[in-house]
């Protein structure tokens, strides 16, 4: 009995530890408080500000477009890399896998800084072209796509590619019609991961973004330092929205995964 109580207490404690901060923020986002402290009354004005201030709206749109765009490029590159490595000879494949590991473990600040040095300082590409920013985010995301796709390739029956060739398909057709559909779940989860990583990123963006452009991360960091309280409290609303979207997304993914599992059993 005592044991059972303990077990529940530990679980509740851990959950509180994980979710209390965001809950506090969520609660305050629905008030007219300007500071975390006294609550005066319920209000949705933070949400109104969030979706009506042009500056905030364009910042959110820009971040989403950047995330989707760079995730798309990263997905194409990462998938190509995974397929290439999978069909390489053993030594080559392990070399590629090892090289792919490095950017994964590397600190983002190092990645961001070195990309800035290479593209902006050495090659002289202006930050205003968005090229350094997109390149930075692609570099950040592609290795994770690679890691998401490789297991799917390993699970795939290797003879289906040969079967396609045997039936007269060119290697390219076999890749597009047979291999890609087989590894598509991996590509999709790689893409989702790339989107989240890009949305999350702060360091690479600060080093490579054009001066006039802000992602949510860089904007939030700057805003919290600033004095504009309406914007600051609107960001509580933004955090809540993002959190809810993430919860929704995870739930949908989980349900889908469960369904798949039941189907294969």
């Amino acid at each position, binding site marked *: 009995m005592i044991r059972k109580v303990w077990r529940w207490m530990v679980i509740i404690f851990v959950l509180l530890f994980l979710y209390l901060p965001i809950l506090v923020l969520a609660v305050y986002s629905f008030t007219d408080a300007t500071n975390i402290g006294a609550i005066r009354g319920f209000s949705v004005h933070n949400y109104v500000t969030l979706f009506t201030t042009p500056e905030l709206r364009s910042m959110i749109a820009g971040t989403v477009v950047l995330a989707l765009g760079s995730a798309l490029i990263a997905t194409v590159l990462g998938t190509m890399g995974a397929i290439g490595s999978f069909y390489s000879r053993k030594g080559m494949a392990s070399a590629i896998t090892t090289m792919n590991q490095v950017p994964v473990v590397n600190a983002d600040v190092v990645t961001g800084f070195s990309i800035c040095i290479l593209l902006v300082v050495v090659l002289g590409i202006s930050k205003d072209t968005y090229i350094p920013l997109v390149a930075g985010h692609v570099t950040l995301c592609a290795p994770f796509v690679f890691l998401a796709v490789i297991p799917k390739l390993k699970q795939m029956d290797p003879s289906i590619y040969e079967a396609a060739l045997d039936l007269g398909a060119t290697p390219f057709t076999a890749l597009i019609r047979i291999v890609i559909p087989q590894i598509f779940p991996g590509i999709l989860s790689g893409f989702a991961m790339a989107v989240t990583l890009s949305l999350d990123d702060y360091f690479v963006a600060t080093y490579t973004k054009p001066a006039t452009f802000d992602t949510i991360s860089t904007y939030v960091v700057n805003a919290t330092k600033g004095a504009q309280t309406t914007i600051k409290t609107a960001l509580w609303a933004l955090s809540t929205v993002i959190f809810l979207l993430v919860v929704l997304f995870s739930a949908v993914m989980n349900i889908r995964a469960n369904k798949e599992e039941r189907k*294969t059993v």
Partner: protein
Amino acid sequence: MEQTTNIIELKHITKTYEDGYSAVSDFNLEVKQGEFITFLGPSGCGKTTTLRMIAGFDLPTEGEILLNGRPITSLPPNKRPINTVFQRYALFPHMNIYENIAFGLRQKKTPEKVIAKKVKKVLELVDLEGFENRSIDTLSGGQQQRVAIARAVVNEPQILLLDEPLGALDLKMRKEMQLELKEMHRELGITFIYVTHDQEEALTMSDKIVVMSEGKMQQIGTPEDIYNEPINAFVADFIGDSNIFNGIMTGKLKARFCGGEFACVDDVEEGTHITAVVRPEDVTLTSPERGNIRGIVTSVIFKGIHYEITVESGKNEIVAQSVHSARVGDRVGVEVEPDNIHIMIAEDHTNIFAAEINKNYELEYNGTVLPVALTDVIKGSSMLEDGTLVDSRGLEIDPKKIRVKISIKPQDIELTDDQEEGLVQGSISNMIYKGDHYSYVIHTDLEQDFVVNDEYLWNMEDQVGLVMPVEKMIFTVKK
């Protein structure tokens, strides 16, 4: 369709991997149009590699593959009019059955109407009418196998390759599919090349069987030939159950093996070392007085249609199949009809002959001094300054009291036309083709039989010299 044209020819095919491992070496094969040919062998014998080279998935490191007389050695698989049924089916899981079967036709830009008609027809052939829209994972193993066959056959290939297609099925299903495949082969008239490690499957289905081991062809022939006249102990052992004994010919149509003398029908020179093969179903158990040999029953296993009875006779064990049971511990006689004994000249038989030591302490054979020092032959011995031979303890060795035997492997002896060049001379009294070389028995002028492996063709009764390099000889000393 003429029965005599070769649809596919493999010439000196060798596949060596980067680490130096040879999966297939010097493989030669001709397959006639419409034949059902089976590659049979244990796993790792190179049968699947050979099939993959015919399909185009692997390229041979040496040799040539001809399709209808034209080389296709390095043609990619999608350009070959050959289709494969894979071991684990390799169906496309994201397509339904119709799309799976249509895949090959779509690559050829076949009009949709024709595709629909052909798919329908081929599904009838494999007894899966109406399965067009089913997905792959709703099918049983046997049904998936049928789809895999349909998907290959619908392209009307010139050759259908089947890589252990029934391996994943249960026994009953396998037997059924064997007959169906055979029927399909008859109906379609396509050349089938089938790979299996199951000897029964090979015997049931094939027109011709290629028995393989360690990347080499051991024997090629009809199922009856392979079963009744195995070329060597490996084939005999692999095909069916066999009792295999080493023995020697003791007279005209007489052989001694398994501790007894048996009359046989294979005319092999007296004194030749042989391998005798007796099928368990050909072993008859009788009363001890009547048998060629006698023994004690050590085990009796009921197998449904017969009993499998093991008889121990001296050091040998003989397995018999009989419809009559026996009791463990019974003393029985073992009888084998001469007709049922298959005699093969022993393969890889090392030649052993005695050398003489002459008065100069040199080794001599057939009047020729061998270029080897006696001190090297007798371990630990040395020659003193006064010319006496002493052993490791310094005691004098009397050359008259020791005998030196020389053994040399059949592949280490070379045959030559120039008889004087040989250490000994003789005439060829027997020859067998052993896949990649000939095995000869040479009866020497000293009345001894030598077994020699040589890749060149000689004729019977040819007078030859036997060149034996000293470095290939193994010397044994007996006191």
